[in-house]
């Protein structure tokens, strides 16, 4: 624990040495840089694998770069084998009783209170145009606007802690800024090489009783062969 604290302090010292400290202002750090740093906190930039629990469901998620995701359903038993492959904006779902992969529409990415998109590609930088819309001594609030179609959300408003670039809360919105969901990032832990949020509590902006929690149980950086994300290989 002691060494962990020292490591965190050293990490903060390093971040401070490159000009990021509690005295940041909008002028000192560009919105693009803030967003990139937030992405680096949320997950590794390269290929990685994580085990994610959402309620009774357990998923093994393999992510390659910024566009390829393979989601394998491990639990509950009835959904075992209902896997999903995403390559950019294209999606396939494996249907166990047909024993084949079926092409599905992009909207399937948005299903569930915790959308498939919430556990697939998780980088915001490059996909969204960030803008700092407000600032306190402790936080920035960024407004993210989608730069391409097919993203899980068209607009995101995210609150970021200045000291650490830890995301605190997010509001997922329609293109007209109508709130869809609200999320709270929590349980920051050392995982896959740095301190990251391992819990995301999502609630519906329309019905606050509709809630779900995404828990990252494990995460590791890992390289995958390109063939793992081939639709024909996915057909088994």
């Amino acid at each position, binding site marked *: 624990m002691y060494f962990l604290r020292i490591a965190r302090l050293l990490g903060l010292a390093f971040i401070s040495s490159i000009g990021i400290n509690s005295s940041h202002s909008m002028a000192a750090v560009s919105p693009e840089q803030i967003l990139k740093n937030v992405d680096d906190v949320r997950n590794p930039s390269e290929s990685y694998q994580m085990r994610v629990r959402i309620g009774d469901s357990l998923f093994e998620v393999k992510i390659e770069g910024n566009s390829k995701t393979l989601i394998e359903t491990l639990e*509950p038993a*009835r959904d*075992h084998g209902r896997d999903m492959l995403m390559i950019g904006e294209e999606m396939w779902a494996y249907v166990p009783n047909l024993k084949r992969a079926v092409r599905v*529409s*992009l909207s399937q990415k948005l*299903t569930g209170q915790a959308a498939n998109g919430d556990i697939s590609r998780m980088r915001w930088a490059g996909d969204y145009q960030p803008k700092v819309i407000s600032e306190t001594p402790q936080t920035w609030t960024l407004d993210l606007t989608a730069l391409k179609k097919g993203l899980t959300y068209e607009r995101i408003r995210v609150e970021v802690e200045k000291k650490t670039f830890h995301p605190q809360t997010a509001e997922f919105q329609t293109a007209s800024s109508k709130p869809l969901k609200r999320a709270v990032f929590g349980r920051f832990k050392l995982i896959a090489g740095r301190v990251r949020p391992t819990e995301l509590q999502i609630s519906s902006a329309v019905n606050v009783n509709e809630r779900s929690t995404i828990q990252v149980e494990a995460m590791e950086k890992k390289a995958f062969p390109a063939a793992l994300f*081939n639709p*024909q290989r996915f057909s088994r």
Partner: protein
Amino acid sequence: MRMGVAASLISLTIAQILFWSPGHAQGALRYSGELGVIGALGSDSVVQSRARGYLDPAIDFKVTEDGFGWSARVSARGWSQFAEVQSISQTQTEAEIRDSYIGYDWQNTRVRLGFQSLSWGETFGFFIADLPNPRDLSDPLLLEIAHIKKPQFMLQAQRFFSDGGVQLYFVPLARPSDFSLAPSTESFQKVGPDSEYGFRVHRLMSFGLDGSFFLIHHHEREVIFNPSPVWSSGVTASQSMGSDWVLRTDQVLIDLKKRPLDAWRGVLGLDWNGVENVTLGGQLQRDPLNTGGSLRLTLRRTSGLLDGMEFEAFWFQGLSKSETWVQPKLSYTTKSNLKISLRYDWIEGSIFDPGLLRGLLQEDRGLLWMSYGF
């Protein structure tokens, strides 16, 4: 022999349940399967009312977590059926080997040897592009769709590229399809004349079109006796449109020596997923025997009071010949994978001038399934 295979299946399953936790992998091994019973209530003497118990065990072996390296699968299916025909009880027991093979996966290449099933088509209902496997049409309405395809003993190789791939297969001795006038297994005994082979190339285009072309040499898959093998080719494609729509098509020319219109079967379909857990699909089907349209609806409930409830409906309407097939199905599955399903097949058409549904006419029935997936 069949009883021996059936006894082996049951022993294997009992051993699995005793020594392994159900539904979980143990190191490199994983077992799965289904144990169930089907009750069928026929509407007349053609379709006997009956009860069938079945067991589908499978064991998968993988050296590495991602499936690269050596892998193997052993699966089988056994069933025992009780029927009462004109006050006489009849019991029938059968067992068969399903997909069972050994394979090796390199980074971009896969080779498999053994009994295998290939799925190539994009559309639903009649699966016209899934030609590499013969069909078990002896009682198709009592089987899940995946079991209508009979695995063939083949050598299969696939080469994957980042946006496509090539697949080749060779079946030394073909298996015949199962229907009343089909050739027997003994009809296929010579490697060469009785072999089947083919290839498929696949490409995912940058604008999202997922397309393939195939050419294969195979024996007859239809309910028409034809002892000579034929060459067939086809294309399959799918394309998502906007965020809610998927366009899909399978177009095949079965027996390239026939006149084009006699050889051409095609399905063009459009699916809509605009509401969560709802799929509505429509298809237009072109076939020398009948041209028609079909609708497919799936409603799936994944939370709340009806969590695990699924309703599926399929309706085919022949246009050039008056034929109708309506199949509603309601299922409830618990999280531990205990499933109860109710299905009814209502089929109308002329037995004197049959079309696409010629193998299903007079087969109306209600079915009740209870199964446990492990």
